């Protein structure tokens, strides 16, 4: 059996003897480098090995103590590298979220332009946005659409104008740039997915990476998000309505970005306000834990799920009195309709939430 170990690659016989060994140099930095890359190697051992004995057998080290000292040094160095590779700075997340917004705006305008322009030559093409850009970048003139492609029929019978070579070049370049922009957007999304867990493990667990990132960005940072009362977290992203509320005592808005959370989207309209309050309070708690640098604590999510379950059980039916007034319970509007002003708050166990915040910040890392 061939096996990669932290000190080299070995060929081990059925009865555990080393048959061949290709040892690495005893340099901690090189060994750490190798340890990092080996973690995904196809020759990782398929069962545990008596690594210490093997290392002595093939004279990588002379003494057990030497094995321990070296392994420890290499592991510490490896972990330090791994940590510095994961980004834990919320500033990067904020930049990524804002860059994504910029991209959306730009991509929208450019794709409208492309649709309008290319429409002159191929009006029957019913694509928009990214599929449109990919199509134009790939084919240019509709004459290049090959037989068998699902647009072939439309392309060969199109009423559109002829496309000159110069224009084709221009449009194709334009579409290619637009495709690049869509690619960048995907990279940014991936970046956020990859890094949110390290920046804010608990917020990510409760809100999900994209929504969590958006909340951090809208709040202006993880610390600011943690400092907001949960009633504010609930309306983050509804700023126009919020300012109006503050200025003119208009009814307080209920639709922050957290209304995109599946727990709220998946709830019937009469439960949404209550679920939103529960969710906002857990996001607040999670943000505070993340600011204190606590590890991921699955109990926040468990508590949230229990609470939502309780809300579902307590309010299985739409409230009677209101149901006559609500003529069109469109999901967006009606969802935020306060059933009673701030009714659920007393029942919902906000106190419990508050208490556990205190507990956690005092008792970190148990």
């Amino acid at each position, binding site marked *: 059996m061939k096996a990669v170990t932290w000190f080299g690659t070995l060929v081990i016989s059925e009865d555990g003897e080393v048959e061949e060994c290709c040892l690495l140099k005893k340099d901690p930095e090189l060994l750490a480098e190798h340890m990092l890359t080996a973690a995904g190697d196809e020759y990782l051992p398929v069962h*545990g090995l008596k690594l210490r004995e093997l290392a002595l057998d093939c004279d990588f080290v002379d003494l057990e103590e030497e094995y321990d000292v070296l392994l420890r040094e290499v592991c510490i160095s490896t972990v330090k590298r791994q940590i510095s590779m994961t980004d*834990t700075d919320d500033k990067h997340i904020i930049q990524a979220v804002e860059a994504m917004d910029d991209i959306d705006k730009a991509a929208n305008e450019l794709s409208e332009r492309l649709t309008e322009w290319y429409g002159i030559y191929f009006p029957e093409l019913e694509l928009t946005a990214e599929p449109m850009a990919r199509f134009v970048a790939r084919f240019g003139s509709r004459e290049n659409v090959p037989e068998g492609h699902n647009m072939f029929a439309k392309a060969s019978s199109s009423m559109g104008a002829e496309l000159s070579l110069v224009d084709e070049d221009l449009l194709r370049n334009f579409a290619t740039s637009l495709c690049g922009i869509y690619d960048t957007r995907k990279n940014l999304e991936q970046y956020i997915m990859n890094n949110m867990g390290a920046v804010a493990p608990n917020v990510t667990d409760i809100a999900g990476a994209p929504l969590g990132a958006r909340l951090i960005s809208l709040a202006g940072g993880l610390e600011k998000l943690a400092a907001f009362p949960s009633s504010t977290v609930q309306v983050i992203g509804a700023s126009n309505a919020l300012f109006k509320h503050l200025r003119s005592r208009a009814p307080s808005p209920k639709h922050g970005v957290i209304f995109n959370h599946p727990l709220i989207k998946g709830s019937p309209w009469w439960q949404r306000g209550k679920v939103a309050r529960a969710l906002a309070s857990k996001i607040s708690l999670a943000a505070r834990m993340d600011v204190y640098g606590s590890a991921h604590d699955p109990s926040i999510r*468990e508590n949230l799920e229990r609470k939502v379950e309780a809300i579902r059980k307590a309010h299985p039916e739409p409230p009677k009195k209101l149901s006559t007034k609500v003529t069109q319970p469109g999901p967006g509007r009606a969802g935020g309709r306060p059933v009673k002003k701030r009714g659920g708050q007393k029942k919902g166990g906000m106190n419990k939430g508050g208490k556990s915040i205190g507990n956690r910040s005092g008792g970190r890392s148990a």
Partner: protein
Amino acid sequence: MSIEQLSDGIFEVITDDRKILATRNLYPGHSVYGERLMDVDGVEYRQWDPHRSKLGAMVLKGFDIPIEYDSHVLYLGAASGTTVSHVSDILADGLVYAVEFSPRTMRDLIKLCDQRPNIIPILADANKPRSYAHIVETVDVIFQDVAQPNQAEIAANNSKYFLENDGHLMLSIKSRSIDTVANPKKIFKDEVKKLESDFGVEFEVLQRKELDPFHEDHLGVLARMFVEDED
């Protein structure tokens, strides 16, 4: 103040009015998580808070702790090292492989590793034992505290990989990580049953006790792995 040894490296410091669980401080003068340091006859002991540590609670609940001064231990779910620091104290001549998958938490753990010569940190997911099989040797004891829904499976898979014949598994099962509403007693029963035979490795459960009043809805399990004879 006097001292009584409960098992290898685990002590009770006895004062006038109470007994305090403690380990001998491997790095004298330094407290890890704010615990009290106590001098008895010129030796420094660190208080071990059972409310902050499942293993500490297991000691006080009367488990036979299989960790000896020269054991090799695989610790899954090391977090920032509260309990690992005590394991490190116990292992005067042993070694603990501390696996944790959160980079943030690992930052704290690394500080502890810098101070103590017998902790080997590993940033990895305990669901993937193969991803650290090039680092971790077979060990005498596996201790696991990961608060994951598939706790039993993680424990069984790591035992399959890394536990020495006759080695011991110590496991803290948190019922709420598995099901938030079901009755903990039922969950514990199911989990232990799963552990015993569901994952292609068999265990003999030696002791099982709930960890209250130190930890609510937690079960401690001490088990020994059965080895099938291969020849």
